[in-house]
């Protein structure tokens, strides 16, 4: 099976299932929980998945989901309450607003759109904590956004895979 570009109108996808969105977000949250210390360049999986669904399904995933997962991340990471929720919130708002524009582009340019969004998310967190009197974590902290943007390609394929599967196989149909 060759996977056609998702942005082109030739490809018709099945509708997304709500449970799969929640499952992918929960899986991303679990990945975030894995304690890797302060390893540099580890992407924020929740932010990435959240950005993906906000771009793909702006009507289903939005600021409410972002806020809930932000609070969960705040507790799990032991950071200040409201730090992740505020950052994810702005990410969800921006991604939802840019959704129509981003989907117009091929994947490389989509990733280039997502990169500043992820960077801004991290910047919001840094500013919140610096105002709160914390230490600057160093520039390596921002590398996580770049690796996250690189992961946009595999992520798109993985998260859209259930929507590629046709219910019944028919060679003459584009689905």
């Amino acid at each position, binding site marked *: 099976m060759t996977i056609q570009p998702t942005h082109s109108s030739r490809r018709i996808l099945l509708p997304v299932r709500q449970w799969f969105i929640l499952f992918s977000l929960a899986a991303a949250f679990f990945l975030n929980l894995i*304690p890797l210390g302060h390893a540099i360049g580890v992407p924020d999986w929740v932010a990435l998945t959240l950005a993906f669904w906000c771009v793909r399904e702006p*009507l289903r995933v*939005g*600021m409410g989901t972002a806020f809930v997962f932000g609070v969960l991340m705040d507790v799990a990471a032991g950071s200040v*309450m409201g730090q992740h929720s505020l950052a994810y*919130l702005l990410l969800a708002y921006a991604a939802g607003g840019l959704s129509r524009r981003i989907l117009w582009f091929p994947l490389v340019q989509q990733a280039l759109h997502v990169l500043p969004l992820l960077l801004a998310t991290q910047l919001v967190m840094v500013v919140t*904590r610096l105002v709160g009197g*914390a230490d600057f974590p160093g520039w390596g902290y921002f590398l996580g956004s770049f690796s996250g943007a690189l992961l946009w390609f595999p992520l798109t394929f993985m998260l859209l895979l259930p929507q590629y599967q046709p219910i019944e196989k028919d060679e003459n149909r584009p689905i």
Partner: protein
Amino acid sequence: MSVVGHQPPPFFKRGPAPLARLAFFVVLSLALLVFDLKYRYLELARQGVAAVLYPLQRAAYAPVDLYGQLGGYFTSLAAVQRENEQLKRKELESANWLLRQQHLEQENQRLRELLDMRAKQPVPGTLAEILYTARDPFSRRVVVDKGGQHGVVAGQAVVDESGVLGQVTRVFPMQSEATLITDKNQAVPVKLVRNGLRSVLFGASGGQLELRFLAANADVQPGDLLVTSGLDGIYQPGLPVAKVVRVDRDAAYSFARILCEPVAGVERHGQVLILGAREPLPPQIEETEPRDKPSKGRKAKRKEPAAQP
């Protein structure tokens, strides 16, 4: 509702406008931030969510744990034997001190009795293991595997075999979070062993520590050992904390810039000891109130008899 009494069809319903929703959630987040940073009201909510997340966190820790165990399994026998030998030698060396300490403690107690001083309480400790570094990159904290169920209370000191590591700052039922002394906001009251000079040690960037508020001409030299002064009522007095590495005396500033290095393996993971809470210090003597407005003075006087019994 429109003029003619029709409601819009349900597929146009999208809730409030995005900007309104954003404003609502931003205000909510900012409120959370302020309440947590400024007033620390949210600890109970955090405890609740953390209790729910605990099994997930343990599951997420499993791969890291497995990796560590695999590494330990493949550690060569020779390395273990070497370590064993080293430990035995160390034990013999310290036996000299330990044997004498028992005697000295008895002597100390007798002398204290003679002098009619209060006996020093023995300090109980809980052995714990550092599980992992907390994810938050803005602070230096570790998670240890003993929590409220094991009698750990926030505020207890955490030490390893060579010195002070930090302090328990947040207790969950099954694990707790300790802030390392290298954290920017963590302060440890210390004194110099050589001359008894007292100061406060703060965390600095890069895993180092900074001795603040010492005059530019203070008698501090590189290599000086700093121990806890015990003035805070949290740390036992006399625990080794850090060693002075560099002293910059700049005439432009009234304070010297003194960089220190922690004695304990702050960035290492392993076994630690959570020391029991110290007996509370005697109540502080209240400063005599300076002459103020008469109304305030009267209020203070009225309060005094209530506070005495």
